[in-house]
């Protein structure tokens, strides 16, 4: 795919590489840690060639020990470094859960020590990875005060949010969607830019129903919007981009306009981020709601491996279309 693209187009994956490369060039305190990120360039080859360029100590292959890796990143961050940790798959972040939630997240609150650290977590399904290579772990960290969470849906945001995350003075988990790695391409600005943390984006303006979503599901929502437009139903698609802190202003503005809302995510439904946004909307925009707040999400099961099962499991364009039609009838 990449080879066929005109030279100025980059994939979502390359956008991530670019962000890392540029930030490492810009700032000596930025360094990378993770399993197999050195000579091998990482499981997804995002850091290919980096060790040659930046040396063994700034592109550090670690033992197989996620808790130890994250703990070390925290220590280095407190000393003024800006570590970027790669989880080989987001799924393995469970092994570092304690360090993230108890140490990184609570440090500044407890005793004022900033932890400027980024954890890159390649997440999400649709890649036939099964229960342990497809997880969406963002829901857990969404409920852990002290962390920032971002989840870009485009190459532009992938680059801009990663740069913003690296420059942020707090622990940021960067959820990069594996399904999008090589499926999206875009021309990116030549000059340095960031996508500010905490700002959602209205990806498509529409008057009828707000679809609030993030990650790979943004594209599902846009597809559904195209289909529905033919029926005269205009979806407004809000891409959260940042999950914590939530851009409530943009969410509320959209729902106040459309009076109807659908939450869409790939993560399991119960206790997912859609629940929080639905709750916020039910709390803050009740007076302007013209219909129930619907949620589309994966069912409450692990991510199944088999193609037939995973297809059933993942939210589909049809789900969005059906929900929108139902809401439009209100």
């Amino acid at each position, binding site marked *: 795919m990449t080879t066929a693209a005109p030279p100025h187009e980059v994939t979502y994956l390359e956008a991530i590489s670019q962000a890392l490369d540029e930030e490492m060039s810009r700032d000596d305190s930025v360094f990378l840690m993770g*399993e*197999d990120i*050195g*000579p*091998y360039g990482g*499981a997804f080859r995002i850091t290919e060639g980096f060790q040659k360029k930046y040396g063994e100590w700034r592109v550090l*292959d*670690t*033992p*197989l*020990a*996620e*808790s*130890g890796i994250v703990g070390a990143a925290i220590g280095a961050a407190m000393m003024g470094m800006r570590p970027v940790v790669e989880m*080989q798959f987001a*799924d*393995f972040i*469970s*092994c570092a859960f304690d360090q993230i939630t108890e140490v990184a997240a609570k440090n500044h609150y407890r005793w004022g020590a900033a932890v400027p650290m980024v954890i890159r977590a390649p997440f999400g399904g649709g890649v*036939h*990875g*099964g*229960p*342990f*290579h497809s997880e969406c772990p963002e829901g857990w960290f969404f409920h852990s005060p002290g962390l920032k969470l971002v989840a870009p849906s485009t190459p532009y945001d992938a680059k801009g949010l990663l740069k913003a995350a690296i420059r942020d003075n707090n622990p940021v988990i960067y959820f990069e969607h594996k399904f999008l790695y090589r499926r999206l391409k875009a021309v990116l600005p030549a000059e340095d830019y960031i996508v500010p943390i905490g700002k959602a984006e209205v990806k498509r303006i529409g008057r009828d129903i707000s679809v609030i979503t993030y990650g790979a599901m943004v594209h599902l929502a846009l597809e559904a919007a195209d289909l529905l437009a033919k029926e005269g139903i205009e979806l407004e698609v809000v891409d959260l981009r940042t999950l914590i802190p939530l851009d409530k202003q943009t969410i509320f503005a959209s729902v106040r306009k459309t009076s109807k809302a659908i939450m869409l995510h790939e993560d399991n439904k119960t206790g997912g981020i859609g629940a929080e946004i639905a709750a916020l909307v039910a709390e803050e925009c009740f007076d302007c709601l013209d219909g129930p707040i619907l949620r589309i999400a994966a*069912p*409450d*099961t*692990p991510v*199944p*491996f*088999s*193609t*037939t*099962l*995973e*297809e*059933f*499991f993942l939210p589909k364009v049809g789900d969005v279309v059906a929900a929108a039609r139902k809401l439009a009838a209100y």
Partner: protein
Amino acid sequence: MEAAETVKDIKRADLLQMYYYLRLTRALEDRVTALYRQGRIMGGVYTSNGMEAIAVGYASAVGRNDIIAPYHRDMGAFLIRGITPGEVIAQYLGKRTGPTKGKDGNVHMGDLKRGVIGFVSHLADNLPVATGVALAFKIRRESRVVVTNTGDGGTSRGDFHEAMNFAAVRKLPVVFFCNNNQYAYSTPLHLQMAIRDVVDRAKAYGMPGEIVDGNDVAAVYVAAQRAIRRARAGDGPTFIECKTMRMHGHSEHDSAKYVPRELLEEWKKKDPILKAEQMLIQLGYADAGVFHEVEERVRKEIEAGVEFAEQSPMPEGPEALEGVFANDDEVKP
């Protein structure tokens, strides 16, 4: 199989059976790799190519009522416990007839009825689980044991430490194997640990440890038997490091350019199947004709397995919703 102190004590039939499983493992994984290259298999394919003797050796030493908790390069152990090539291929293809009914892929499979704890991707997670299996045996005063395995990389995880320590403190009937194949994905041993022999880790727990030639199925078998005997006698856990080499890439998509070719050449000569054949010939237990028969038998079994798997149905979408919870009548309280 019966107790053996050296290879000479192992019965011919037992050695031949191990040889058969070496071949079956090799052939099955080669076939799966071929299917992968044809784009027929989703997800990863991790093989035990060149390391088959470890799983075959330890699983052959395990008793019928014992339990194994294999890791991702232990295909031989799955087979010895009775998971058929057909089921394995069905698992790879996501068919309903695989041990996980399509819920999980590749070697992430288990079956308590056949005494196999399902492998979890998160490396070393099954080591504490194995100690718990052993704990149940100890509490109930059963003379059963559990044998588990991990890679060199897996020993870096905290769960390895917590499991080894608990097993040692409580003298649990568990045998910890370690497949030291020099690499964890692309990471060479010296970036994984500052020791040359993983077995040194056993000392930290007051646990006996030993090093074994992981490419010699008889040696693995004898060491496993010895450790299992200790465990069964109530003398606690043992750690066994099997020196070997990963001959393929980490998974079949990985060309493993980071591995020096000479290293592979050198280890190629120590191939466990070759070694087993030399041994069988030397002991006068078999000759080229026997090997050929085994090869044929294995070939047929694999083909039958492929056919079984291909003809098996895919699960229906809504089956994705089944099985999150166990039913009330599934285990008697």
